[in-house]
């Protein structure tokens, strides 16, 4: 009798936790919430600003201009037969998506403490919506990249993508997984001790410099070979170099590097998920 009754329980709230406790059925039930959060993110970011969605364009454009002036015109970093501006814009576009996923995911718990403290829904919805709404912004920035791509093509530059373009979705996925993974780890670690929050800001800008954003991979090999490993084993450098390779046909691509990046991305994501899971049940007590 007692046994039969306990079988009927819909769910149990207890301190015990599994390693990965992802309830996909539940996440699916909350899909409308995910969609609405994504929509809310996109609609409300630039409310009460004059330039509105134009801000999506301004940031990458100006960064690319400054990079071209500093790294190519002053520091004379060669970009082969690719116009430096386009070279930088491509790198920045890819970098931005990762960067945004990482920084926004990394404050999931602290930024949403208000809503998390009042109502239950699968917490993982929040990082997911960040990555998805970031995808929208990434799409817009890709469009700008395309516009300049076509512009330089008509200017007579010899630009052509290569067959690697087929891997584009995999690259986007890897960027998302890396951003999510690292972001979730940081978010879980910052619920109690805020030290990492301070670090994220400058760490990401430093990370950019070892991720081959404003220079091609070959430059590091040539000029500071002793530190080339730093870039070579950085999955982000692999992604950004690979991204430029597929659309501009410039730089180095190796399958070993590709699979290395894929494995690291998935690994980091799973690790992030485990840590996130351990934190989500009780974080509200310490945040």
């Amino acid at each position, binding site marked *: 009798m007692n046994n039969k*009754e*306990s079988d*009927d*329980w*819909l*769910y*149990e*709230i*207890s*301190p015990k936790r599994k390693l990965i406790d992802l309830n996909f059925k539940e996440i699916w*039930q*909350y899909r*409308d*919430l995910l*969609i*609405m959060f994504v929509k*809310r993110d996109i*609609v*409300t970011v630039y*409310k*009460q600003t004059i330039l509105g969605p134009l801000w999506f364009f301004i940031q990458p454009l100006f960064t690319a201009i400054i990079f071209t002036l500093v790294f190519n015109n002053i520091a004379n970093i060669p970009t082969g037969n690719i116009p430096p501006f386009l070279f930088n814009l491509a790198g920045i576009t890819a970098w931005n998506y990762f960067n945004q996923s990482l920084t926004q995911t990394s404050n999931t718990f602290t930024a949403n403490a208000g*809503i*998390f*403290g*009042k*109502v*239950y*829904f699968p917490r993982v919805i929040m990082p997911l919506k960040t990555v998805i709404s970031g995808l929208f912004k990434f799409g817009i920035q890709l469009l700008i990249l395309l516009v300049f791509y076509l512009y330089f093509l008509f200017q007579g530059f010899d630009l052509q993508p290569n067959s690697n373009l087929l891997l584009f979705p995999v690259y986007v996925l890897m960027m998302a997984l890396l951003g999510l993974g690292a972001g979730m780890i940081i978010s879980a670690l910052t619920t*109690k*001790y805020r030290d990492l929050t301070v670090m994220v800001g400058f760490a990401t800008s430093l990370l950019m410099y070892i991720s081959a954003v404003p220079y091609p991979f070959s430059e590091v090999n040539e000029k500071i070979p002793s530190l080339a490993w730093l870039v070579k084993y950085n999955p982000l450098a692999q992604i950004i170099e690979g991204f430029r390779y597929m659309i501009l046909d410039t730089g180095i691509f190796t399958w070993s590097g590709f699979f290395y990046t894929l494995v690291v991305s998935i690994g980091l994501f799973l690790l992030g998920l485990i840590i996130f899971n351990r934190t989500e*049940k*009780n974080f*509200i*007590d*310490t945040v």
Partner: protein
Amino acid sequence: MNVILKAENISKQYRLGTVGTGTLKHDLNRWWHTVRGKEDPYLQVGGVNDRSAKATEDYVWALRDINFEVKKGEVLGIIGKNGAGKSTLLKLLSRVTAPTSGSIKTKGRIASLLEIGTGFHPELTGRENIFMNGAVLGMTRTEIKSKLDEIIDFSGCEMYIDTPVKRYSSGMTVRLGFAVAAHLEPEILVVDEVLAVGDAEFQKKAIGKMQDLSTGEGRTVLFVSHNMSSIKTLCERGLVLDNGAIDFFGGAIESVDHYLLNTKAIPKKENTISENHRRQKTSKEFQIVKIQSLNENLQQDTPIIFHILIKKNSSLSVPISITGTIVNQSGLDIGSFFSDSIIVYEEEQWVDLKIPNHNLSPGEYHLNFSVAAGSLKESNFIIFDQAYESIGFDVLQEKNSGIFIKWNKGWGDIHFNSKLRKYEV
């Protein structure tokens, strides 16, 4: 017999104080114990959740070993003092945070109204927020769509429905939030003090809706409130929490009575007056420091006597008097006294206060004191200091009490003296 929710031995421990290097040390120690497969060392410690007591340990049990069951369709009222653990319990039930030990089993979806309007975004319109809020509470888009008109109608905010929520008044936000939540279809609804903000009309509507939910649709409602009359009208059963433990679990009316009886733990021998006893800022030229009661075997015909320590903080030498109000157990003021005045010269002075013929019937009472000067007649009456709920006393049953054995409280708080004599014409 149909149990829908079952709490088994749930406890919740919190850490007192701030997060810093001290907590890091504990965390490392805890981690080291887990690594070696041992039990968390800090689960062994932890003080009782008594808000006003001095903290002696780093940990506190906000809830300790709570067991209860709720049947389907029942409305359970949860009452208790501030900090008794009510909201912690609701947080555990609504899965906002997990218990430290024990478990809660449920057969239905729990939706919480811990604070309504959760997930409202100020920039979005009322309509958009209905969808947003509904989704946060676990509804699907189609579910919300089918109830949209009903929700708007219930909220009574039709005119503003396409205006951003940031332009709403606070009452309107609450209305909209409650309207969404009330149209949820969870098997168990958790409600925390939501009715406080709405106007009278809306409160009536909300209470009606909650009654419909439980009687009409067989939903289970857990309701936390400090409003005893709404607990009495809405709930069938009551759970009284005190210092993180269950103090009483039973019928709603019995629970409310139990709660009201126990909330005023006022000392009966001696009490030192602190800021907690002052309801407003007092000038304190003369200050009530300590009160002693000399009323151990108080009966109807014995005088009530208090010794009061008055501290003089200024060089004023006006005659002062003690005034006070006697309050019964249900918080009703029974009567007041205005003593004659004396001049106090010393910096600290004990005074003796006597109320000779009080005529109070057997029972428990307490007093609000104030020290004052002047007279109301000449409108120069000044109150220097006050001490609410300062000291209590019991009036005992007289051994030789005429025709009755025990005073019935239904007869009132005052036992009038009466004499019957033959009257010669």
